[in-house]
């Protein structure tokens, strides 16, 4: 079947066969590899995207279920040549080690700061509870967002 949806602001169509996840459709059919595939069971958050305004795991969304929906991936959080303040904060704090978890953290943190521009440390931790960093670089990740929260966006 052909799925038509709005991806990072642009009308997009993709062909899907069988029960494909949105994550696989984004990576393999659309060619946007920013969302990472690791656990495929909603545990790690590396595939986080925003679907119709809600932060969700794209590995748990059926591709066909986004017909007519709006999807924002990490590729769409900022313009082509600029960083989102969330990305800048992570860069400055050295919050990236291997980088595999980074897109998921970026999407989850952008979602957090949109609804709450100055979260407390515990609000930051709660908002990121669904994102796992296998390099265990949580210290720097949390610090990045504490600094961003202090500064305000």
């Amino acid at each position, binding site marked *: 079947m052909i799925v038509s949806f709005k991806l990072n602001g642009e009308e997009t169509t993709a062909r899907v066969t069988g029960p494909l*996840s949105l994550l696989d459709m984004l990576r393999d059919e659309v060619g946007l590899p920013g969302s990472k595939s690791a656990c*495929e069971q*909603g545990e790690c*958050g590396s595939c986080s995207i925003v679907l119709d305004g*809600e932060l969700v795991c794209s590995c748990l969304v059926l591709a066909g279920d986004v017909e007519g929906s709006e999807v924002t991936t990490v590729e769409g959080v900022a313009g082509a040549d600029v960083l989102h303040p969330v990305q800048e904060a992570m860069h400055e704090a050295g919050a990236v080690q291997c980088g595999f978890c980074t897109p998921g953290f970026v999407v989850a943190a952008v979602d957090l700061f949109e609804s709450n521009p100055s979260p407390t440390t515990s609000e930051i931790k709660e908002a990121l509870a*669904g994102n796992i960093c296998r390099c265990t670089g949580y210290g720097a990740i949390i610090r990045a967002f504490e600094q961003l929260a202090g500064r305000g966006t």
Partner: protein
Amino acid sequence: MGEGATALAGGTDLMVEVNFGHTRPENVVALRRVEELAQWEGGRIGAGVTWRRLERDGPRALAQAARTVGSPQIRNAGTLGGNVGTASPAGDGLPFLAAVDASIELASESGRRTLRWDDFFIGVKKTARRPDELISAIQLPEALPDRQEFAKIGVRNAMVIATVYCVVTRAEDGETRVALGSVAPTTIRARRAEELISSVASPGEEDLREFARLVSEEVTPITDHRSTEQYRRHSSGVLARRLLERCLR
């Protein structure tokens, strides 16, 4: 819903099964954007209401449970209807439904029917739903007890399947309900413990101890990779007592 079709709500249970090749649904009925299922009026909670909304607007003990589900991503997608549909003994929403004697509303082309929770949940991941029926809503009684508390015991705070789930409610007149999850094939009520404590206006140490003992006696847990039968039995009593004490405060 046509026979042979699979309902898909938030996908947080179903898509895991799909991704791991445990199921390959041929026909999927996608419910995420069905407005009627997202409706919530008074005690009638549409099956499509998400944990996120329950966390914000649910009755106290259901909101407490919702707050502990998965992660923000899971709470944004996962629904109460999906929790009921999966019918896992470890479903976070189920002890509350059992404690307040909720009913499950089912809809099909031949009409609607409602089943009380204990007629609906019939075994581990087994329900009385016919293949052609959708879960349309969860119905709570009009008046809910003022005092209601939820807690679960697990190895960490976030993203964990717990070993014991418990809801205790207590009404003005002392009527007490105790529902427990993950300690029997379905969610259960500890009826003997309820009966004992409901008739005591201000329970003292002796009553509380007997209450906990009865709860531990009434559960029928198993030993698995998460915990042992003994630990689950013991912690059921401890947890129920603690929640009762919170209700009494």
